[in-house]
């Protein structure tokens, strides 16, 4: 759990967030402090502890596979930054 190799550029890229160099410096050093703090968890022996994902005593909640009413194509596209012919428009992906 070392944070010496925390590379803000690399992780921001994974997170798909463009940072200015100022932000890289500031966020990088703040995140270094926070990672230093969470190292606390290394103090505990957790070798025989089960991980807990959530608090609800429910498993594999299923519903019947039935068609239900939903929003229209027009409503689904109402907030789209760009749309055409009932579709979302995105930059070219495949050459």
């Amino acid at each position, binding site marked *: 759990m070392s944070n010496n190799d925390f590379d803000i550029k690399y992780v921001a890229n994974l*997170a798909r967030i463009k940072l200015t160099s100022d932000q890289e410096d500031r966020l990088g050093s703040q995140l270094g402090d926070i990672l230093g703090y969470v190292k606390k968890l290394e103090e505990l022996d957790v070798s025989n502890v089960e991980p807990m994902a959530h608090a609800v005593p429910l498993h594999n909640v299923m519903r019947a596979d039935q068609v239900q009413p939903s929003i229209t194509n027009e409503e689904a596209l109402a907030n789209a930054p760009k749309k055409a012919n009932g579709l979302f428009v*995105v930059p070219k992906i495949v050459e």
Partner: protein
Amino acid sequence: MILHELTIDELTKKLASKEVSSRDAMQACLDRIDNIDNSINAFISLDRENALDQADAADSALKNGANHNDQPLLGVPVSLKDIFCVKNQPANCASKILGDFRSPYDGSVVQKLKQAGAVIFGRVNMDEFAMGSSTENSAFGRTSNPWDLDRVPGGSSGGCAASVVAQECFGSIGTDTGGSIRQPAALCGCVGIKPTYGRVSRFGVIAFASSLDQVGPMARNVSDAATLLGSIAGYDPKDSTSVPTEVPDYVGDLNADLDGIKLGLPKEFLGAGIDSEVRSVFEAAVKQYEALGAEIQEVSLPHTEYAVATYYILATAEASANLARFDGIRFCDRVEGDDPFSLYCNTRGKGFGDEVKRRIILGTYVLSSGYYDAYYIRAQKVRSLIKQDFDQALEKVDALITPTVPYTAFKAGEKTDDPLQMYLSDIFTISCNLTGTCGVSLPCGFSGSPKLPVGLQLLGKPFGEQDLLNIAYAYEQATPWHKERAPL
């Protein structure tokens, strides 16, 4: 009678007797907002016409025989945190990134509030995407604490707490991921409930950390909070983590009898780091409980010191996945790029504020290849230990009693440059989200100078909201704190 000062209980009685109309009540809130919200800044946006139309509809329903037994909130103006989807209304999560977004549908809590007859209006301020403890991380400016405008209202549901305490609405609905209902309730001086995970549907609530988020009410007293909770609680097939159990009659079953009730004082919460005035106000509240017949005993939650670190790994990991949807394709203010990758980076780089960026990046890191086991899985294991602590303590007592926050409202700007200090303000509230249990914060007194509210926190068993409400109600009935009004 000053209309905007009424409690929900008082207002519904006057609506039922036709002494006042819902339109009067709604107009009183709008007038109040016009008079004071320049200084409070609780409201991000407001659709006045829509609010008055809903009020008129409630008045017609009342005229046609509708009643508050069937619709407990009929005609009552309730504000909503800017995180809920209300059909055709904006939902910004206090972020720039959502631009002119309007919800195409009503979330389940909104549907339930409408069924209960509430006039739901306005979108109140919050920390962006519910990430923060002071309502300073908002693209719409900070909200002020009604007791001292230079101070923060707490967060992330700071707009909810401020709007209730400043009497701009009769109640409000917020969300609590690490204390975001209880902490602002404490710092502003109102009642806030974080229900058990699974008690209230999360469908139509913009997700922050899905295993921790829970919707809950904020109100001027315990009975009002119980009314609001009863209206939003219950199973929802649209939320797979919603639990199919009966919803009690929270208000009808309110009971101030503390005979045989055992309250646990977690010794790990009462070490160093608590402001001396908060400590003495809290100790007086504990004595009051003893005088009222409750038995107090010390309990231990040995892993308390690990809760904040555990939380900031799990919550940011979940947030990094949840907030991936804000990419500029289906919604959001898009910033173009030559390819999808640069479009995503540009859109998110411009649209998200600093704290949101910080948390997404931290969450991405703890889930990334090579670090997943060391951070994320380890934190999930510590979460189990924290849950075991709570299970064991709550076998011995009916509820835990703690201060909600180690200090009173701090000054705006005081902690903004030090995110870790800001995170540590949630130290007493955060475990309850990790364990998925329920919690309440209620007013228990004031600091001397400046006069600022202090909150008392009660933490209960899973689906034990009724017990917590009763324990809170007993204290409230015996004390004057909930009647104090902020000097506005």
